[in-house]
């Protein structure tokens, strides 16, 4: 740990990121060069090599936008426009984030309820659990457009349909993780509760629930990332109204690669913030509950 941070973390990760950016710039040059060469030939312009490279980095609709173009676009649409504006990435991120969080909360709640049921009712364990596991093998996101359209047909529009897709994607990891967590107490501890003549309710609150907390945070870390994917995909069939997903779709319609990259990075930033937030809360709770820092 001591002194190893620079050598084992900063240096290798920094190198990898640096190489990524260099490769990105090289990719920008090589992918945009044919179009730019064509363009220059048509307008009979001869340029020096350095000018040509600069040109490939500053096309309005490049095949591959340069990192600084994306960064500028991101900056402009985050800080340069009004928050309520349709062009503001903060606005779109907010739309996506709200349905992500609503879906995440509903999914987590549903997952916990299902897990508690499965742990306590043997019939549910035998009949329902196999379906939960089997459903992991099914490409669930394929259902997303249909849910949106069906709910729109019964006049449920806006936040809720997208949140339902997030719910759908996020309750599986929580349910599976919580079943594992609620069953994690050792037989010895369960026997101890029995010698105390504890009821199922008491065993649950005093033993099973505390034991499941680490599992809970591990699974909601997966769930929150899945919810974000659900919210983004849920925005696709609504016809590009608002949200990160609609920015992606609109960008792909009009070949606005810079916009697509900016939206993608905005989505990634949200994802990282969410996961880091869950992680920090998980660590804090773990320490407060007397756990050893991992």
């Amino acid at each position, binding site marked *: 740990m001591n002194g190893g941070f620079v050598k084992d*973390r900063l240096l290798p990760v920094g*190198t990898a990121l640096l190489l990524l950016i260099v490769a990105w710039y090289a990719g920008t040059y090589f992918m945009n060069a044919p179009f730019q060469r064509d363009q220059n030939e048509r307008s009979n312009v001869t340029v020096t090599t350095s000018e040509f490279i600069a040109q490939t980095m500053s096309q309005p609709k490049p095949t591959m936008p340069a990192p600084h173009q994306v960064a500028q676009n991101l900056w402009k649409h985050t800080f340069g426009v009004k928050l309520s504006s349709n062009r503001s990435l903060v606005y779109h991120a907010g739309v996506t984030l709200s349905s992500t969080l609503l879906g995440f909360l509903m999914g987590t709640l549903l997952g916990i309820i299902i897990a508690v049921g499965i742990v306590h009712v043997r019939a549910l364990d*035998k009949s329902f659990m196999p379906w939960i596991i089997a459903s992991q093998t099914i490409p669930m996101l394929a259902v997303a457009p249909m849910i949106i359209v069906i709910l729109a047909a019964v006049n449920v529009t806006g936040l809720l349909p997208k949140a339902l897709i997030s719910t759908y994607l996020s309750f599986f990891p929580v349910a599976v993780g919580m079943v594992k967590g609620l069953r994690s107490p050792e037989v010895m501890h369960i026997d101890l509760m029995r010698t105390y003549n504890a009821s199922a309710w008491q065993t649950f609150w005093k033993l099973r629930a505390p034991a499941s907390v680490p599992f809970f945070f591990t699974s909601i870390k997966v769930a929150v990332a899945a919810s974000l*994917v659900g919210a983004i995909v849920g925005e696709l*069939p609504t016809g590009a109204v608002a949200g990160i997903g609609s920015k992606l779709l609109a960008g*792909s319609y009009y070949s606005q690669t810079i916009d*697509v990259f900016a939206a*993608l990075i905005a989505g990634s930033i949200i*994802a990282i913030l969410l996961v880091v937030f869950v992680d920090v809360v998980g660590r804090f709770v773990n320490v407060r509950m007397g756990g050893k820092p991992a």
Partner: protein
Amino acid sequence: MSQVQMISRSQKVLEWGFIIATGIGVAVSFTTNPSGPNYALPLFIGAGIGALVLRMRAKTIGNILSPATHLFDLALAIALFFAAISMLGDNQGAQSPGLHFWALILAAWLFAWAKVIQLSGAHFSGYAKWFFDLAIPALFGATVLFLWEAFVRGAGVPFVLLPPPSAIGARFLASIPILGADLYQTVFKAVLFGYFVGSIAGFLVAVLADRYKFLANGLLPIGNMVSALPIIGIAPIMVIWFGFDWQSKAAVVIVMTFFPMLVNTLAGLSASGNMERDLMRTYASNHWQTLLKLRLPAAMPFIFNALKINSTLAMIGAIVSEFFGTPVVGMGFRISTEVGRMNLDMVWAEIALAAIVGSLFYGALALLERTITFWHPSYRR
């Protein structure tokens, strides 16, 4: 002990519920004129009387039934489902079915429910255990399909909102050529290519990163971070770069499958114990020999875990990428266009196909894992 008592109590409630619902259903049927075929009523009457007799004798025979009896009950449950549904005849929700229909639906449901609870509490051994471990969730699934069918057709839910399973099945069988073409385009071109290239690339980079610690230190944090990102968002970019056809979908699948394989293989390569590694050192084996003979076999469970995760990711990646633009064939294309035309039975057929393919893919991997990692404790008997 209390668990067992609770099960038998709820089972009693369900069984009496079944008898009462059957009684109501049969009685109402005789006072009105049931429209369905005439085998439904005798079946229910027989099942109801049989259950009543069993209830009366329950004290003497207890709850211990032979597997053959359970098997008969399973068949009876399925028969009751079909009998109850057949009460609807050709009625597609144009007129609402009478009370007898709903009473018999309720009866069939309660019967299946009681059976699931009874089977969950029973103990089997050998092949019977294997069979009933599959039969219980199968009965549960059948119950869901049956209630869906009964609710949609009985209550007259508009077809465009939620088609009944029978209509989805009919549509599935009627459009096998289209489904086959979509399957070929999406799975056999995009998914399989992307899956193999992505997984193999992830594996090779992991082996390299394992050799050069600097690479592992650089890639692992990035790989872990990428797993949280909505990678599916690169789909529009790939469509712009590689065109509408399957190549762009395969590219998305490659990116999606690369990192799980990288992270899991790296974790797996450090899974072998110190003792075994020391043994390899006493044999004076070099890095590649240790890798090949000890550490790769030890990493196999992790690699298969990644392969399983990737099988789902690959399907999702290919289908969702098709929402961003595709030639006029493919599962994602079909889903998005048929949703637009409100042909929801076709959408459901496509989803059923995706579910079947996804499960088969996963099942094949599980089978392969079982043969390759036969030594792993989880497969020992």
